């Protein structure tokens, strides 16, 4: 039991449960099933972005382009309408292909130019902003893509599609991390890049793969957001940059790479969304709300986030 308590992932989950119970006692509406389900829907978006982010971070990098990619995805989808495809699936596939390619370009840049991913993905984000000026706001497109609407609002056997999508992404991410050679390579690279390369780890392939995956996840999150919100806008992805990084680190993954699991990130995503919702229902001035938010994160971190020592 004490070993279990030492484990950060387990602790993260315990904190989520404790927080839900406490919030439910404090604010009766909070613990209603519908509300919790909605929180999970929201957490899905953060969680999906953070899935790609987790892979990149464990491999020793960081992806600062996720926010721009989310926005890009949400803005570009309505521009892609194909008369032959009333279901909208083609546009969805095309958008995801584009965002995956953007991620892949990040990976290629990191591998070939050997520029720190922080800088490279930041530059990508900047360039995407430029592209958005060209694309967004120009033409009057407001197509309703049925596939996207279903992804954002539909449900499968009573389970919202956002959550279903998240479960799928979570399963794949966990499998990639812990069940494939690529996953092992990521842990090796994030732990010690030089030693990993000398042991024959395919660093180039791994880096390329995780950045592409991150592009895919961000693109998917953009589509879900578009579906939930029915309308994309410039800036729709912004909250998810720090959000995804925070979810990853709150979940016990080391920001320096090599250590962590997506199971923790899932808890981290839920935690983040929960705290935000909690702050919303607390009636206080904006200054106090911010202080409460920061204090809560710090407090939860003190409970669950201690680096194991000794």
């Amino acid at each position: 039991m004490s070993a279990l308590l030492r484990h950060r992932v387990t602790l993260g989950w315990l904190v989520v449960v404790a927080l839900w119970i406490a919030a439910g006692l404090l604010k009766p509406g909070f613990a209603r099933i519908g509300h919790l389900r909605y929180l999970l829907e929201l957490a899905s978006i953060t969680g999906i972005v953070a899935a790609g982010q987790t892979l990149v971070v464990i491999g020793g990098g960081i992806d600062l382009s996720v926010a721009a990619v989310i926005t890009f995805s949400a803005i570009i989808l309505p521009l892609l309408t194909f008369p032959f495809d009333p279901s909208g699936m083609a546009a969805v596939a095309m958008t995801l292909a584009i965002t995956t390619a953007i991620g892949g370009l990040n990976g290629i840049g990191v591998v070939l130019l050997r520029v720190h991913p922080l800088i490279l993905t930041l530059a990508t984000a900047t360039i995407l902003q430029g592209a958005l000026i060209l694309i967004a706001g120009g033409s009057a497109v407001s197509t309703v893509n049925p596939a996207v609407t279903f992804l954002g609002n539909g449900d499968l056997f009573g389970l919202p599609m956002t959550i279903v999508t998240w479960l799928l992404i979570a399963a794949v991410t966990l499998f990639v991390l812990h069940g494939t050679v690529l996953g092992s390579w990521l842990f090796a690279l994030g732990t010690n890049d030089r030693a990993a390369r000398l042991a024959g780890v395919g660093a180039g392939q791994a880096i390329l793969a995780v950045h592409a995956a991150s592009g895919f996840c961000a693109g998917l999150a953009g589509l879900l957001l578009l579906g939930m919100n029915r309308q994309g806008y410039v800036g729709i992805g912004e909250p998810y940059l720090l959000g995804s990084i925070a979810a990853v680190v709150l979940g016990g993954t080391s920001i320096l790479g090599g250590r962590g699991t997506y199971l923790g990130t899932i808890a981290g995503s839920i935690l983040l969304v929960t705290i935000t919702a909690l702050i919303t229902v607390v009636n206080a001035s904006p200054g106090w709300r911010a202080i409460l938010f920061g204090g809560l994160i710090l407090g939860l971190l003190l409970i669950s986030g201690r680096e194991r020592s000794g």
Partner: protein
Amino acid sequence: MAEAAAKCIKGDRKPPFTVGWANIYSVPTWMKQTEGTITDVVEQLKKDGLVDNLVITDAEGNANNQITQIQSMIDTDVDAIVVIAGSSTALNRVIEQACEKGIAVANVDSLVDTDQLTVKINTNSNEWGKQAAQFIADKLGGQGKIIIMNGPAGISVSEDRRAGATPVLEANPGLEVLTETNTAYNSAPAQEAMTSLLFQYPEIDGILSLGGALSAGAILAMDRQGRELPPMTGENYRQFLELWKEKDLTAWATMQPNWLGGLGVYAAVQALNGKDIQPYVEVPLPIIDNGNIDEYLARAGEFPADGYIYSPYDLAMFDQLLGLK
């Protein structure tokens, strides 16, 4: 030589003029639309030989960059600067410098604190809050539970609109403010905040939304839970107007017209031309209500899907607003 009529104008600048547009952030759609009105007005003025060049900068949301860029505009001696301020205080000094150099400075939308400039052009944010609150008070007959949705804390616009609502709320003690939210002026965060509040408050009689896409987010949140939509206020965000029609709401909206940008250019050029421009031009708030919403929606196709359907404008109307005719 007659004294130049407007502030900052020294009368030594001759047409055609170079106009600088010091944008705080060019990526958001509202800004893009505003830039559209500016280039439009510049094109019209070019035909009259009044303007020959438009310089556009983008501070990427960083007030410090905006200072630098306005500085550069001064250095290259543009004749007029139109500016939407990234901070109500940060630009004071650099704008005063521009004014000293005889550059016509027109400040629109987000205003600066200093008065050392040619003209400030804006709607009245206080009035906005007041009218919105009054609409809610009227519709609810002064009785009911409401939620106030506001933009981000710490910036002047949100604070001013909220301040405008206060006296109306005080005058209607029957209105109970359940809670207030502060989110970015975007629909997604507004929807998130509203959803959590809906679970908290089973009974909501009105939503006093103070702008942007906040009301669209509120509608989406309530719709998802199958809640009945109470009277609400909002802005001319296209999605909100479309939802309003679709859900057949009782609602009220006003706007921050994008053509404030074009008007800024026009006013600055007129000032350079020796016209007497008032230091503060208050643009009356155009009102959208259940009576005229169809007129707006009829033109929806001309506007971006994530944009704002602003009221029509032309130079004659600008002359009127500036009191030139």
